[in-house]
């Protein structure tokens, strides 16, 4: 049992604090919760992408056996909409549905089966309306409007130097697409709402940010925030899909109405409809360079499909736009980036948050440019890479470490696995795996590289501070540190890292955690690779204050300190897209080695090597685990993962047809860390959870191009593309730049700001 007591300080591979209950099955996720006399809730959803609701008849459902309550928009007591940025998303569709899967009603019954039967009895009469299901169609003047304020949700314009007008000697001009990816966290949406006699509610839920949930839910319940207590239930992964509200408001409404606890859990099919997805993208990118390899112009038109409601599309677009020219010093940059509303399923936060889409485009374009210039692809990157002191297209100066050269060199130095013999392998060691499709025919190896970057923490002027309370308590066995934080650990190992920080700062071994709830102040979201920095900083600050209070003295009684950590301030973008929008940056280089069966177009990824700029690694084993998981997600977008839509309806809402990588699809992953400390960050850390997702997709596709010679301008790459059945995507040209009042999301100009914005701005 010795390994399980590896408590670990900063820099050591400490044992996960919640590992034991997870391996025994005792750890309780939102979908495992139980209460006496609970009711099960089931949601009724629209099959149509765009329709008027003519009539909803709940009488049949209300009469059904075991049904306790049926709610629709007609029953809403207070705010009728919610949203992370703008409250544009109805609790229940109100007169009109805007996407296939939109909630229309919810039914509570004694058993899950009775609730499902009751839901089937809710009778809704729809009048289908014209739907806009293509992001370029959405920009056309004759397109149906998803919302009255128009289909443009946000447009960002960035102009640096002479924009697109400068001269260059060599040009490449490419068009690239990425599909709608799903977070596909294994743990489905789930939670339990328990009403109290005084009209308050206790909500136990799997989520990413308790406080922004509470803000939205309370408004829709018509309750002051103090009467809604949210306690974190175990979260079975999230990757962005738990940032938005899912079952919370529905469950609380039912609980308040029936006076009984209500549990809602989504099945896998419903889960696809119940959370946001990654924005599909279309990129038109031109690089202009001099013959000596210096890139002098980057000209990007980017389009993202935001789906029916705003979610976090505004910040996703802002992020994507600021990274669209790549981690390269380019003196003249023009970026015109738009996210539109459509009647497709809403898109929002997913690991990478806009960075993966643009990385695929700029790294693909960089390889084209290298080929045209006759440069080695890595040498072209190194020739143009940003470094500390570089000026980014937004005018922001890269103040922290930017070890692009180092991550490239470390990645390149990882030994490439030797080529295996073609014949005589076990069947599963060929592309196609368990399908027995080959004995070594038509195998071709390819190697590809990509460099990516992204920000850490929130951007564009938001103050996403994090609070933590640390208590140092004497005990017979020695002092114990107690950490209270509302931060969510949905698997990345945040709590373990916080424990390591407390052990290091307070020189203790025992660290325990109080339950995460809204009893504490906000720790911000577990997203944006921010929590090690933000909650780590809060715990660090609290520990230091405890040490100061103890100086020279003994620990006689418990001493407690609460610390709120703020990152350095950022600004929004001015009318030319200039400002200091990001807190800090981190960089990664990835190499993919693939083997392709050229006749069947099937792929076996042989190795992924990822070198990442981590600032400081707190827990090496945990950091590797994060890179490995992020890499697998990037691999999924490269090869197999795509939400397929037909007229706005999801065709593959199951794990049979939405294919996440299995253990036979993900190769061994080698991770390397470059540690150049970030100034002003606790221990010099940067975030690590997202970068490999950003850079793996283009690396894999580059390797596939090397193996097959195909142009491949779309992710995921399908067998059709690899065997040449499917020609490269064509475009009819860049869509027009919309006329907008400014850089902010359009709803803001209509006075609709809410959600995260208000929460974070109010703290000033």
């Amino acid at each position: 049992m010795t390994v399980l007591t590896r408590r670990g300080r900063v820099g050591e591979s400490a044992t996960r604090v919640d590992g034991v209950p997870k391996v025994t099955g005792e750890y309780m996720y939102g979908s495992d919760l139980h209460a006496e006399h609970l009711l099960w809730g089931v949601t009724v959803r629209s099959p149509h992408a765009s329709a008027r609701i003519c009539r909803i008849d709940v009488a049949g459902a209300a009469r059904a056996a075991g049904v306790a309550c049926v709610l629709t928009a007609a029953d809403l007591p207070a705010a009728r909409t919610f949203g992370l940025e703008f409250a544009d998303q109805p609790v229940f569709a109100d007169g009109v549905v805007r996407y296939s899967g939109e909630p229309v009603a919810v039914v509570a019954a004694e058993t899950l089966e009775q609730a499902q039967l009751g839901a089937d009895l809710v009778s809704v009469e729809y009048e289908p309306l014209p739907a806009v299901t293509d992001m370029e169609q959405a920009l056309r003047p004759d397109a149906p409007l998803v919302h009255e304020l128009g289909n443009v949700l946000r447009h960002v314009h960035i102009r640096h130097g002479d924009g697109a007008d400068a001269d260059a000697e060599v040009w490449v001009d490419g068009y690239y697409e990425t599909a709608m990816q799903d977070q596909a966290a294994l743990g489905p949406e789930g939670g339990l709402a328990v009403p109290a006699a005084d009209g308050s509610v206790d909500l136990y839920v799997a989520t990413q940010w308790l406080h922004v949930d509470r803000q939205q839910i309370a408004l829709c319940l018509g309750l002051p925030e103090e009467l809604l207590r949210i306690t974190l239930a175990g979260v079975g992964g999230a990757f962005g899909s738990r940032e938005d509200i899912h079952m919370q408001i529905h469950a609380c409404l039912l609980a308040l109405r029936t006076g009984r606890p209500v549990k809602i859990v989504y099945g896998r099919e419903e889960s696809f409809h119940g959370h946001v997805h990654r924005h599909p993208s279309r990129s038109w990118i031109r690089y202009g360079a001099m013959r000596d390899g210096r890139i002098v112009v980057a000209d990007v038109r980017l389009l993202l499909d935001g789906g029916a409601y705003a979610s976090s599309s505004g910040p996703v677009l802002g992020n994507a736009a600021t990274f669209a020219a790549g981690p390269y010093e380019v003196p003249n940059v023009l970026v015109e980036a738009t996210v539109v509303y459509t009647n497709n399923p809403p898109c929002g936060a997913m690991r990478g948050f806009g960075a993966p889409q643009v990385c695929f485009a700029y790294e693909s374009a960089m390889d084209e440019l290298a080929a045209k210039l006759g440069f080695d692809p890595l040498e072209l990157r190194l020739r143009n890479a940003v470094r500390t002191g570089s000026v980014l297209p937004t005018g922001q100066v890269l103040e922290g470490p930017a070890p692009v050269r180092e991550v490239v060199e470390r990645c390149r130095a990882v030994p490439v696995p030797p080529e295996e013999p073609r014949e005589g392998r076990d069947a599963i060691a060929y592309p196609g795996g368990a399908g027995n499709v080959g004995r070594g025919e038509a195998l071709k190896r390819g190697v590809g590289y990509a460099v990516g970057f992204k920000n850490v923490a929130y951007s564009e002027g938001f103050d996403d501070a994090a609070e933590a309370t640390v208590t140092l308590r004497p005990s017979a066995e020695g002092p114990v540190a107690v950490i209270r934080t509302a931060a969510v650990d949905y698997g990345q190992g945040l709590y373990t890292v916080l424990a390591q920080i407390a052990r290091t700062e307070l020189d203790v071994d025992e660290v325990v955690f109080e339950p995460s709830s809204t009893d504490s102040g906000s720790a911000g979201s577990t997203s944006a690779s921010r929590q090690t920095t933000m909650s780590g900083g809060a715990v660090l600050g609290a520990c230091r204050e405890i040490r100061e209070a103890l100086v020279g003295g003994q620990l006689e009684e418990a001493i407690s300190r609460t610390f709120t950590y703020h990152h350095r301030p950022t600004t929004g973008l001015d009318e030319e897209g200039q400002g200091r929008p990001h807190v800090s940056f981190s960089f990664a280089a990835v190499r993919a080695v693939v083997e392709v069966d050229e006749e069947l177009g099937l792929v076996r990824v042989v190795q992924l090597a990822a070198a990442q700029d981590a600032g400081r690694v707190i827990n090496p084993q945990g950091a590797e685990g994060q890179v490995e998981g992020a890499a697998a997600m990037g691999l999924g977008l490269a090869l197999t993962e795509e939400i397929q839509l037909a007229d706005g309806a999801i065709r593959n809402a199951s794990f049979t047809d939405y294919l996440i990588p299995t253990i036979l699809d993900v190769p061994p992953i080698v991770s390397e860390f470059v540690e150049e400390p970030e100034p002003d960050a606790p221990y010099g850390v940067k975030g690590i959870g997202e970068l490999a997702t950003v850079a793996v997709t283009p690396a894999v596709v580059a390797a596939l191009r090397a193996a097959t010679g195909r142009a491949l301008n779309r992710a995921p790459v399908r067998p059709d593309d690899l065997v040449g059945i499917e020609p490269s995507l064509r475009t009819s040209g860049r869509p027009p730049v919309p006329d907008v009042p400014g850089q902010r999301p359009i709803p803001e100009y209509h006075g609709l700001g809410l959600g995260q914005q208000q929460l974070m701005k109010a703290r000033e």
Partner: protein
Amino acid sequence: MSGPSPGTLAEALEARAAHPEAVPIAGGTDLMVAVNFGRLRPEALLDLSGIAELAAWQRRDGAVRIGAGATFAQIASDLGEFPPLVQAARAVGSPQIRHRATIGGNLATASPAGDALPVLATYGGDVLLASVRGERRLRWDEFLVAPKRTALAEDELIVGVEWPVVDGPGSFAKVGTRNAMVIAIASVSLQLDTQARRVCIALGSVAPTVVRAPEAEAFASDALDWDDPQRPLPETVAREFGALAAAAAHPIDDVRGSAAYRRRAVEVLARRALAWAVDDRRAAA
């Protein structure tokens, strides 16, 4: 429906006749998916998984008979003399699925993507059916009528499959977009019958049901050198065979793959399967 599940085939047939509303279930790997997704809400189930005689297999009079209840795990471990069948079994899902999924289930579900079905078709096998009224057998293509539709009567159960044992190498291969846990986009089963000097090939997932490719078979049966196992397979023969096999496919575009890719996959798999069979025959000689 109450009481213990049937322990013998006779009990099961009685129950089937007496309670036609009880949905038969063996491995449950197709049926329970429909139930879990709310697409099927049976009032009762007729559990066949406890009937030992349904899982048995035997060789007799130059034929092999495999009980409908034989799981793919059992097939993979016990039926090594039929490589195409074992390869199909190994290509099915995961160990968890293979421990439950049965060959009878593949037949009852009658999806053109069912992994054992092209193998059965290659062997020209029969499907054995029984009811309280007696037994009958249908040729595989008489049983598999249309996608997800069979000729099973309301009171019948599938009891097994039977096919004549042939001498010669063969294989099964299936294409999917990822390396495991896929429903076939296209599959091919091939068998050489060295006595009858015939090549048999069946295609899965590329037509409403599993189909044979008679023109391809006739061509290859004629073109192979049956007298000299050491003779390599000419490239032109392999290519023509592949092209003829692909021509026998009538695939559609669906969420899993395109028709064009399916045709290409069949052409490649058929060509490879024939080459492997010739190689295996040479190695055995």
